Structure formats: structure tokens, C-alpha cells
């Protein structure tokens, strides 16, 4: 198959930037030591990690010692939820209704440990309802976890406001900033959160590395025990190449943030103008969103079917979040927004980057129109 596929699934994963590969290669092709070793091979690896830690810290406005490297966003979220609650007396754990499974599932696992897990609802635009949050915080709450930008709709969440509320009620706030980081400015002190998750492969870095960034006052128990790496908070030999690549990707993302934001937004505006003409319902369109994300449905067209059809004609898009692609359940995010399940089943996510072009959008809209007509025809026959 020689057809080139247009990649419209950047919220799922992103292509590694060439400069990132360049930064990583010495750590894969030249002899390098275990960062724990005291000889020159080990010390060089340690120095590379220290530098990467500083670079990443600078990108989010914290000190290097606040960055704990993990194997990715999933581990960082599990670490935050399980690790922070482990050192608190059981009370209420509050999460938003639109969190990623790697926040909701560890949260659910805490029910075994006498924690009461409660959800904060969102409005019809997919934005956390602060009044509901304030209400929920009246019950004694140890930890709140709310994502900074939703991976499906792209809707930005009022995390700074939540931080103020949480603080007033003596709760710690963790934010999953995996989708937001690298697409919009993310400054941890400005947000006022005590813990924040970021991931490398969503910003042009390698898969398999992420970080949990912690306020120094947060008392957290490790998830992985062993050699005492990461100041005892995360044992295991460091993924040196991955960490170096992550830091390089962070720096590149910060340097080109405005350009990429503007480019992606321009492409999305073009896309959504076309989608409206096709009768698509665009979710969370009134919310402040990530500039690159569009989540929509064409009424009476199944999302999964449409994704497969578009794939055949050379467009890689997603039906929901990649992690839940296996299930046919409608998106929990859309259900939380009060979207009818039938419409929610039609959801398709396009997530763009500056690597996409206006021509690709034009071609996509044409292909979409064709596929929609074809599928509607099939539906009519079936009926």
C-alpha cells in the first residue's frame, strides 16, 4: 500500500522530532553506564539526567528537584493518586467525571483502602462545574485530581480556580496535564497545583517516559520500591535516552509554542467550518479548548465505522481516546456532558499539529463528505 496517510491523531501520540532523535542517539549507540555507577560512564549518564531534569523544570516553572521521572503519564498518574493518598488518613478523593482511565482506575482501586471516591460533574461544554466542586469539597477531602485539558474534547479545565478551592478546604490538587503540556503554556506555580503529570510522547518526545512534578511539601509514597533512584520516590534504572529525549522535546515545544498554537488553530477553524456544513455536531465548541483538537459526530453515523472508513482512504483519526478504542461504549466524557448515547457513539476526534496542512484538511473534508454519503446510503439500504 503506497498511499500516504494523513496523521490526525496527535492527541494519541506524536512523531518523534528529528532533534529529539539526535539528542537520544548517543545514549543508544555509544557505551553509557548505569547512572548509579560512580565511574565516568555512570557519572556521564547521571549528568545527562540532571541536565534534562533542569530543562524540564524550567519549562513548567519549577525547580529541578521537583521533577520525578516515570515510565510515562499512566505511571505518573497512578503514582500521584496512590502515592499521595497512601500518606494521608482516608477521606474523600475527588476526581472529575472526565478523567483518563489512568486516573479513574487507580482512584477506584482506593475504595479498598477506605477512601470514598466522588466525581465532580462537568457542564454541557465539558468543563468542570466549580459550584459542584465547591459543594463536594464540603465533605472532608484529602486529594482532588482534575485534568488540565481533556484528551477527547480538548476543553480546558478551571484548574487554577480548583486549586484555590482545594487549598481553602485543605485538599491537595493533582492535575493530569498530559494533553495540555506542549500545546498551551503550562506553569505549575501559576496553576497552584501540588502535583502535575506530564508525558513525553504527546509532545514529540519518545514513548515510555513521563514525569510527576511535585510541590516539595507533598508527602508521597513511592509506587516502585528498590534501588532508591529519584530520591527514593521512583526506583528503577533510569531510561537515560528517553529522559534526554523528553527534555529535548520539552524545549522544542516551548520554543515553538506560539507558532504551533496558531497553526493548529488555523487548521482546526478550517476543519470545523467544513464540518458544520456537513451537519456535524462539534462537542465542547463553546469551551476554551486546546487549539488542535476537534471532537465531533455526524448524526446517525457510527464513529467506529467512520474511523475505519477514513482510515481506508488515508486519514488517521480516532473514535475516542486511544486507550479505550477496544470498547464500544460511548465516550464517558460525552456522557458526562449530557450528550445522548446515540450521538456520542458517532464521535470522531481529529487532533492536529503544525505538521498538518491546509490541503490535508480540504482533502479530509472531501473524503468525509463522500464517506458520510456512502454510509448514509448503506444505512438507507439496511433500513
Amino acid at each position, binding site marked *: 500500500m503506497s498511499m500516504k496517510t494523513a496523521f490526525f491523531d496527535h492527541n494519541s501520540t506524536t*512523531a518523534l522530532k528529528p532533534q529529539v532523535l539526535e539528542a537520544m542517539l548517543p545514549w543508544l549507540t555509544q557505551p553509557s553506564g548505569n547512572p548509579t555507577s560512580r565511574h*565516568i560512564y555512570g557519572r556521564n549518564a547521571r549528568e545527562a539526567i540532571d541536565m534534562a531534569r533542569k530543562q524540564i523544570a524550567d519549562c513548567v516553572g519549577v525547580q529541578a528537584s521537583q521533577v520525578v521521572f516515570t*515510565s510515562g503519564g499512566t505511571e505518573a498518574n497512578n503514582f500521584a493518586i496512590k502515592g499521595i493518598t497512601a500518606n494521608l488518613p482516608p477521606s474523600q478523593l475527588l476526581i472529575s467525571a472526565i478523567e483518563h482511565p*489512568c486516573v479513574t*482506575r487507580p482512584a477506584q482501586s482506593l475504595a479498598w483502602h477506605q477512601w470514598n471516591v466522588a466525581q465532580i460533574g462537568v457542564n454541557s461544554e465539558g468543563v468542570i462545574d466549580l459550584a459542584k466542586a465547591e459543594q463536594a469539597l464540603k465533605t472532608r477531602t484529602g486529594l482532588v485530581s482534575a485534568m488540565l485539558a481533556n484528551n477527547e474534547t480538548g476543553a480546558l479545565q478551571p484548574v487554577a480556580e480548583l486549586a484555590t478551592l482545594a487549598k481553602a478546604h485543605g485538599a491537595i490538587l493533582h492535575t493530569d496535564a498530559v494533553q495540555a503540556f506542549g500545546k498551551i503554556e503550562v506553569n505549575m506555580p501559576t496553576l497552584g497545583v501540588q502535583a502535575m503529570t506530564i508525558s513525553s510522547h504527546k509532545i514529540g518526545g*519518545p514513548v*515510555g517516559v513521563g514525569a510527576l512534578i511535585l510541590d516539595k511539601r507533598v508527602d508521597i509514597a513511592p509506587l516502585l520500591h528498590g534501588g532508591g533512584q529519584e530520591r527514593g520516590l521512583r526506583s528503577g534504572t533510569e531510561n537515560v535516552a*528517553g529522559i534526554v529525549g523528553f527534555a529535548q522535546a520539552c524545549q522544542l515545544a516551548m520554543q515553538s509554542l506560539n507558532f504551533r498554537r496558531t497553526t493548529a488553530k488555523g487548521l482546526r477553524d478550517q476543519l470545523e467550518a467544513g464540518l458544520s456544513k456537513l451537519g456535524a455536531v462539534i462537542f465542547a465548541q463553546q469551551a476554551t479548548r486546546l487549539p488542535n483538537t476537534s471532537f465531533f459526530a455526524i448524526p446517525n453515523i457510527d464513529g467506529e465505522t467512520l474511523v475505519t472508513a477514513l482510515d481506508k482512504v488515508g486519514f488517521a*483519526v480516532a*473514535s475516542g481516546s486511544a486507550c479505550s478504542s477496544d470498547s464500544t461504549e460511548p465516550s464517558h466524557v460525552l456522557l458526562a456532558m449530557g450528550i445522548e448515547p446515540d450521538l456520542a457513539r458517532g464521535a470522531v476526534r481529529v487532533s492536529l499539529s503544525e505538521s498538518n496542512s491546509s490541503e490535508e484538511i480540504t482533502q479530509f473534508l472531501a473524503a468525509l463528505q463522500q464517506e458520510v454519503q456512502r454510509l448514509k446510503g448503506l444505512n438507507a439500504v439496511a433500513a
Partner: protein
Amino acid sequence: MSERKPIYLDYSATTPVDPRVAQKMIPYLTEDFGNPASRSHPYGWTAEQAVENAREEVAKLVNADPREIVWTSGATESNNLAIKGAAHFYAGSKGKHIITSATEHKAVLDTVRELEREGYEATYLQPEADGLISLEKFKAAIRPDTVLASIMLVNNEIGVIQDIEALGNVCRANNIIFHVDAAQATGKVVIDLEKLPVDLMSFSAHKTYGPKGIGALYVRRKPRIRIEAQMHGGGHERGMRSGTLATHQIVGMGEAFRIAREEMASENERIRMLRDRLLNGLLQIEETYVNGDLDHRVPHNLNVSFNFVEGESLIMAIKDIAVSSGSACTSASLEPSYVLRALGRSDELAHSSIRFSIGRFTTEADVDYTIELLKSKIGKLRELSPLWEMFKDGIDLSKVEWAEH
């Protein structure tokens, strides 16, 4: 002035990535990107296929079914997942007692300690002076409520090989889940999980010429072993370990394990020759002791103590080779290796130990250089050592009353 890089003899700490492994990984870092869990587009498909091929390679090295291999971020995570995962799952039906050994890797020891904080009880078996676990002592440690035993296949510091088959049979007979940390064993000893009575086994890529940050856990299917996930999320790896799979890393581990399977026999022979050469050279130095049994041992490891020489000054003296020493430098003082202490070595001998670990890229010239370096530096340090002088004067140092401060 160009500084020559020291000779690398620290393969047990980490191995360089084999160039063939790196070559195989790079395309998955650049072209074939994709989230293997995204089934809806071709990028994802390519990645998924690569991941499954690698899973097969890992399974083949240890004669397991690919469906028994779960990807993790490394052996530390595998050990945590196996021990906590099985202990949590079976504690209710079997009990809360765990057996392990005092010479396990920290990732096992600290995980068991964490379980102790949760209310489990643990027995830490002391090895014999040769580093091996006594089967009789192992049997004696079993209690009715023993749920899990964790014993490593190859020790990271002294390279001794435990009799996993015998220990595993005891576990089977007593209905105990048996976990084996094999991070130091892959590519060094033959592992046949069809025959070995092992339920869970941890692997690491970066000790076998693969990349850092990727590992795997073997979870037996027949009889089926259950573990409680430690990382929850998208339900990857059949729910046992969530998190986006790092395709390039997995591909690297698969290739590393393929090479290990195909080249192990000839490579081990070459390494054994080098080890014997090193051993014979070092034993020419007086008052030199090999730590750990020499027969039940991988040829890659040689751990030697040089008597009457202080550890830190020894490390300073041999800067031209990259090795590990038997003492971990904590902030204020030298802490002798807990493994050597468990063997009954004195603090002095533990401090003055060096772990030489030989690997794929070690040459005969490297070994010869190392022998000469050690001969000359040990000689110099002993010339400086009042203890050596006393020893040579026939004074029994154990009878001296030291003015300790």
C-alpha cells in the same frame, strides 16, 4: 590532552546497547510511530505487530508462551508487580508470609519490606558462605501461611546461580507462589520455563544489551497465576499493566533477547575464557579472595576482595577501569555491600572488594591490562598500608586492640 575512556568491566550494572539492537529500534522512533493500542489506523497496526514479534522473542529465550509475557518499565517494576501483585491477590486465600533471601536485589528486598509495613511477615534467608541458599533452610522457613517466595536466579554482585528448580519444586509441593528475579540471568544461563517450576519471573533489557527503561514479567498460564495490577489505566497488557507501550523500547528488548538466544552458547564460552584469564591473573596477587561460589556461577562475574587495602583508595587507584566496588558510597561513610556481609565477609574484606563483570565487548587485552593495573596498584597501596606491614611481620590483626574513635 585527550582523556582515554576507562575499560568497561561493569556489564552487571548495565550493558551497552548492542549496535544491532539500536539499528532495529531507530525506525520505530522515527517512521513507524503509533500508539499500539490505537487499532483504528495503520500506524497503530505496525506498532502492534512489532510489539507482538518482540514478545515472541522474549518468550523464546525462556521457552515460554508469548501470552505469558507482560511488558514493564524494567526489572524493578517487574519485581514490584510480581511480589505485590501476587501477595495482594493470594493473601486472602493463602496467608501473609513471604520467604526471600538476604542477598536479593533491592527491588525485591524493598518491595518485601513495603509488604511488611502493610502487615505481611517475611523471612530473609541468610545464604551459605558461598552465596547459595540452602534447600533445607528454605524448607524450614515454610509456614502454613506462606503465600510467596522470591529468590533470584543469578546474583548481581557475586554472580552465583541458585538452584531454582529445587526451590521451585519445594514451592509447588507447598502451594507457594514462586517468583524469580532473572534480571542478571538472561543470555547467561539457559532458562526453560516449560520445565522450571516458576510462576513469575522478572526480566530486564538493559542487562542483556537492550535499552534502559524496558523489562518484562513472565506470568505463568498453566497453572494460571493471577496478580493484582499495580498500574491502572487503559487496561493494556490484559489489565496487568496499563500505560502506552513504548514500541521502540519493546522492539529493542526483543532484538536483544533474540541475539542472546542465538549467541549465548558461543558468547559464554568466550567469556568464560576471559574470566579464567582474569581470575588466574588476580590470584597471583597475595591475600586475594573470590567472593561467592565459583562453580555455581555465571562466567560473566568475578567478585574479588583484596585484603589490607581500603576500599575507597582502591577505587581511586583503578580509575582506568570502570568496575563496581563492594561498598556503596552513601553521603557520609562507606557502607559495605550487604550481599558480602550476608556471606559472612568482614567489613574490611567487603570494603576492599571489586566486582569485575565481563561482557560482549570485553577483549583479552582489556583483561590483561586490568590484571597488570591491579597488580601494580594493590602493590602500591599495600606499600602504604600499616596493616599489610603488620601482617607481613606475622602479627594477628584480630588480636590487636585498636584505638577506635
